[in-house]
């Protein structure tokens, strides 16, 4: 590798990350702006955060968003993990091609189509639009992301561990909970987090599937953005970013510690 190539590489990475992060950084900086103009710096202030917490509509929306996120992420994790197991463990069953199609297609399906089709389903079966339909919709699209995350871990999983447990007489269900689950748990946790962030971020599918009384934060932010850019929205966005950043950092620390522990256990096992 000669030095001109690595200089090119470093430049590409630095510019690329600047492009990825600068807009978010600017957004956060201008949430602390004294001036009402979002693009002119008028001094440091936290007044937009104060006014944010006095905005009852926004607070209600935040509460709805968090509840839908928690419920739908948990359900999506269960369903997505099952789907991942079905895809990796059972290579032959009737309708497998259709099944894998239904797992992968929602990942790229334009949200307007998913949203419209779910809404029409809810109308056809006579469900009133609101918190419940919103949650069902979120479970449906996020379970596929969970399935992909968990599946990628299952593919590299050493099946001989399970076989050993079963040879020693452990029933399959017990084997799953004692052997398989602990190994794929990091993937399940990151799947849950992905499902949760997808849920609290979603605008398009929520707009189609929710009804009166179940306005989510992105829907609220969107309707305000259409009226104009305000520092208050910047503040709301900054809080959302902060929540997600804390979650991701916490998860990666937990993962790292588990990884270190695992390596230590393996070394101990080899020595013993």
């Amino acid at each position, binding site marked *: *590798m000669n030095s001109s*190539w690595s200089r*090119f*590489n*470093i430049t*590409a*990475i630095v510019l*690329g990350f600047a*492009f*990825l992060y600068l*807009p*978010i950084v*600017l*957004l956060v900086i*201008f949430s602390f702006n004294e001036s009402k103009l*979002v*693009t002119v710096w008028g001094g440091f202030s936290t007044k937009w955060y104060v006014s944010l917490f006095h905005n009852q509509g926004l607070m209600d929306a935040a509460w709805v968003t968090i509840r839908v996120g928690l419920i739908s992420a948990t359900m999506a994790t269960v369903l997505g993990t*099952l*789907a991942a197991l*079905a895809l990796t463990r*059972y290579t032959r069953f009737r309708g497998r091609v*259709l*099944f894998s*199609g*239904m*797992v*992968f*297609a929602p990942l*790229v399906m*334009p*949200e*307007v*189509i998913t949203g*419209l089709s*779910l809404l*029409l389903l809810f109308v*056809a079966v006579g469900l009133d639009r609101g918190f419940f339909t919103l949650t*069902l919709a979120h*479970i*449906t699209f996020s*379970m596929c992301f969970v399935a992909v995350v968990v599946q*990628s871990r299952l593919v*590299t999983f050493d099946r001989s561990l399970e076989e050993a447990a079963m040879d020693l007489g452990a*029933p*399959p*269900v017990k084997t799953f909970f004692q052997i398989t689950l602990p190994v794929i748990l990091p993937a399940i946790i990151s799947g849950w987090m992905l499902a949760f962030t997808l849920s*609290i*971020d979603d*605008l*398009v599918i929520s*707009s189609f599937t929710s009804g009166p009384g179940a306005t989510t934060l992105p829907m609220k*932010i*969107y309707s305000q*953005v259409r009226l104009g850019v305000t520092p208050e*929205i910047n503040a709301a*966005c900054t809080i*959302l970013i902060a929540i*997600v*950043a804390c979650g991701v950092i916490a998860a*990666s620390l937990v993962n790292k510690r588990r990884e270190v522990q695992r390596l230590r256990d393996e070394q101990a096992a080899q020595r013993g």
Partner: protein
Amino acid sequence: MKHPLSAITNRLVILVPYLWLLFFFLIPFFIVFKISLSTTAIAMPPYTPTLGLADGFSGLLSQIGEFSFDNYLWLTQDALYFNAYVSSVIIAGISTFLALLVGYPIAYGMARAPATIRPTLLMLVILPFWTSFLIRVYAWIGILKPEGLLNQLLLATGVIDQPLVILNTHSAIFIGIVYSYLPFMILPLYSALEKMDYSLIEAAQDLGCPPASAFWKITFPLSLPGVIAGCLLVFIPAVGEFVIPDLLGGSQTLMIGKTLWNEFFANRDWPVSSAVAVILLLLLVVPIMFFQQAQARAQEQGR
């Protein structure tokens, strides 16, 4: 497996997610198709016929007789829809190409970075994906506005003396799509480039092949699976994108996701918006099947 219990659990592992997706993902498409054949009505739900067995079986048959392809005819008669489809595909295509141009050097740089910092770089690429899509698009409004930060910077440094008009143009949509979908482009490219054996390039260069032609003859063809996966991951959702053209493109831009949204929320015409969705789906069926096969193949290889 011999346990009688395990046969049931085996079946449940497949059946539960299968039935869920069947009911909440596949069946809704048939409902969309059914409603696209209906007529608008001032009622709730705002279309007729609503299939039901209220009038017995003969009633159901006569309801089926009311279905028509009028909505599809309507789509072909109004040039608005055709133009919206065409411009969506063009905008998504250009954006995908730009995302490839921007993403490839980043992915390449990451793949050739020291192995110790690669996981960190990978996490830094994924991280923006965890922040809200809406927020990331919103952030660009403040940058691209006529009095926004980009124009302020360019005016202050003397690069331009008139503010550039970027917001509410196609350029703003390109920037928005490239920015929002860049991680989707970088990740498959990175995983293809990381697996590559770089001694091939060294061998080519030792034999006197100039770096540029070594790149086109070796690196690029070997990274082609990643290029295809990345392009599909960007192109397919971008065609039906709503938030980006709505917030960055202004009222002038025509994209099909926005048309569908307006047809549904502003005009409350459910049958026509269903017809728009059906055509959009037909447009995307080929790339989606491509994508699904690429995924299945990758999964087979990972085994």
